[in-house]
């Protein structure tokens, strides 16, 4: 008889131990738990956690929310949808968090949405830009009302921001009309480029070339050759997961006769310039936040973040910080943690964040435009200094050409 039982003792004990080791459901007066699903191996993930933690510390120092402290629970969502879904399940079914703040890859968030909806937990996106993420809020409100995006402005808004740059800076100021657009073949880019093309054309620019390339490309010379042949005078790039480092180095080494700029998420990194040995000079990068007095909170937050993390924040650090505050204030107004009540208050959000005034539209997506949050164009200049060159109202410097094109 024992012969039968013996082989089962170990696995049964292990499974039972693990099962009971899972934390019990949150007690009534315990801390408010903020789940952070993010790619913890990346800078994006680390900065999200730092931003969230900074906000939590600030709020806890003032007594917390509804008399309860805030607590962060991190789950690794990687850049893979399967792991992403597992992270959501871990946070909602196991850790039973009260709210989730995080995200980065649009594909992962999209995969997580139905699971988030089923868990009836509020989710605030701070990293992914695809408009599809908030689409269902309108078309299926009852199930998807839990989804909010507080950062960054979505790909469509980014496209309009780029159009604004093309029309105002390139066409009006620099008298450049012919542009080329290249972007990595990812969902948010596929969402963005059509809007960009249409808007640019309507603004009077000529889109000479528009190409997607494989995210894992490591040799851009064929692509760059095509751009050169197209007769474009400015190259708009749309990059997030692809290797901006390699792209920019190859552009520089080839003394490419066309200046570049656009949305280059890795180009937003504080150490990008030094990482590529200075070869990013004159690249104009769309930023979601820069160290400039965009609002009263920008400079204090920025410096505090540098102090806490030793490096300037990437945009998810800003997003995470603001999202916690937005959520905390909504809970205070609702006087309850109950999702439906909090959602009602979140929808009424009118909050001055680090990057601008934050208000949600009817699809729970952060609004963009004058008076709200905007895409800021900062250019890498000599010695790694970043000057904001657009919009004009907050510009800190003038735009420079690539060093080999000075004569122009």
């Amino acid at each position: 008889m024992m012969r039968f039982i013996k082989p089962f003792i170990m696995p049964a004990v292990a499974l039972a131990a693990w099962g009971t080791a899972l934390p019990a459901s949150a007690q009534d007066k315990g801390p408010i738990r903020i789940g952070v699903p993010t790619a913890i191996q990346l800078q994006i993930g680390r900065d999200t956690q730092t931003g969230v933690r900074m906000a939590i510390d600030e709020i806890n120092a003032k007594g917390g929310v509804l008399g309860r402290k805030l607590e962060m629970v991190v789950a690794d969502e990687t850049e893979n949808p399967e792991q992403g879904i597992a992270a959501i399940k871990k946070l909602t079914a196991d850790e039973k968090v009260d709210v989730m703040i995080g995200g980065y890859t649009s594909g992962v968030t999209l995969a997580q949405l139905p699971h988030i909806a089923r868990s009836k937990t509020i989710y605030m996106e701070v990293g992914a830009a695809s408009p599809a993420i908030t689409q269902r809020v309108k078309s299926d409100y009852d199930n998807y009302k839990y989804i909010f995006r507080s950062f960054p402005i979505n790909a469509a808004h980014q496209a309009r921001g780029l159009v604004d740059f093309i029309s105002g800076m390139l066409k009006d100021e620099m008298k450049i009309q012919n542009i080329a657009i290249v972007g990595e073949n990812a969902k948010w880019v596929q969402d963005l480029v059509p809007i960009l093309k249409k808007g640019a054309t309507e603004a009077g620019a000529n889109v000479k070339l528009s190409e997607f390339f494989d995210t894992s490309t490591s040799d851009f010379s064929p692509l760059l050759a095509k751009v050169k042949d197209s007769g474009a005078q400015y190259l708009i790039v749309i990059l997030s997961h692809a290797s901006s480092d390699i792209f920019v180095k190859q552009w520089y080494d080839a003394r490419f006769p066309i200046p570049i700029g656009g949305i280059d998420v890795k180009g937003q990194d504080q150490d990008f310039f030094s990482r590529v040995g200075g070869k990013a000079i004159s690249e104009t990068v769309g930023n979601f936040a820069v160290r400039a007095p965009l609002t009263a909170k920008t400079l204090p937050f920025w410096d505090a973040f540098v102090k806490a993390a030793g490096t300037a924040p990437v945009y998810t650090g800003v997003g995470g910080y603001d999202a916690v505050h937005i959520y905390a204030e909504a809970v205070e107004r609702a006087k309850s943690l109950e999702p439906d009540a909090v959602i009602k208050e979140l929808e009424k959000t009118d909050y001055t964040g680090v990057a601008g005034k934050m208000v949600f539209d009817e699809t729970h997506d952060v609004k963009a435009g004058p008076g709200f949050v905007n895409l800021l164009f900062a250019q890498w200049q000599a010695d790694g200094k970043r000057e904001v060159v657009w919009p004009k109202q907050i510009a800190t410097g003038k735009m420079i050409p690539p060093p080999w094109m000075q004569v122009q």
Partner: protein
Amino acid sequence: MKVRAIDIGGAIGAVALLALAPVLGNSGYLTGVLTLCVIYAIWAASWDFMSGLTGRENFGHALFIGAGAYTAGFLATVYFANPWWSLPLSVVVAMAFAVIVGFPTLRLRGPYFALAMLSAAAIMQRLMLIFWEQTGGEEGLYGLEPLINSPLHYYWFVLAVMVVTAAVLMLLARSHWGLILRAIKGDEATCQAAGINVTFYKIASLMISAAFAGLGGALYAHYQLQVSPPLFSVITSITIIIMVYVGGMGSIWGPVLGAILLTLLTEMLRGFGEYRLWIYTLVLMLILFFLPGGLVAPLWRRLTGARS
């Protein structure tokens, strides 16, 4: 190897444990994790039946998984059919892929089959990205509905499918069919000289392997509620081969447990944060290095005093 009473007792015990664990642990999270475990078990068992028995290694098992999953995806998002149709259809589509790749390559000796499977899966992954307008590209297809609304009931359904899969494959493996597959592993020319239509058995067993893999793919799609190109990736294929290896190649039930253990391990290591992947890799390397015959099947035989 003869099936002993203790082996059957062990099987029943394991299934009972798997079925009751989420109820006992009272955790929706555990239900989700175990659903994934059991689906990987179906994939591992199906790989073992063909490659474990014949020794013709299939490095692109993900091809069948992705085929089944995307079939379910297309049915849900393009054709809006009753989702239950994805189960039989995923089997048919996966078997079709098995014929397309297997027919030209299994009749040849050498690495052609292994390379063809590897390439076919990689090609499908690229195609899903290239035709992103039809397939949803990187983000894939989403909008799939669960087959059964209660996650616990769905888990029991998937568990039942896995048990049937393992039972069918083990019966086949122990039958004359399995004998012929093992003979093919031994020496193909000798098999021919014994009057056996070797190519038929190779293709047929690949189709059987594909059928269950595709079925698992559809079950996966209805659990994740989305399908995306990484399903076709070489990582998926290699993960499954490692699970088979840890479980004990050729036994069918060993890979089932290997898959469950390794999937559980991945989740259980979450507490180690950034080091999760390092530790998982280390554990795998230790097993592969010190236990060339696998972990699960040899361990069971040792514990229950089987003659080797």
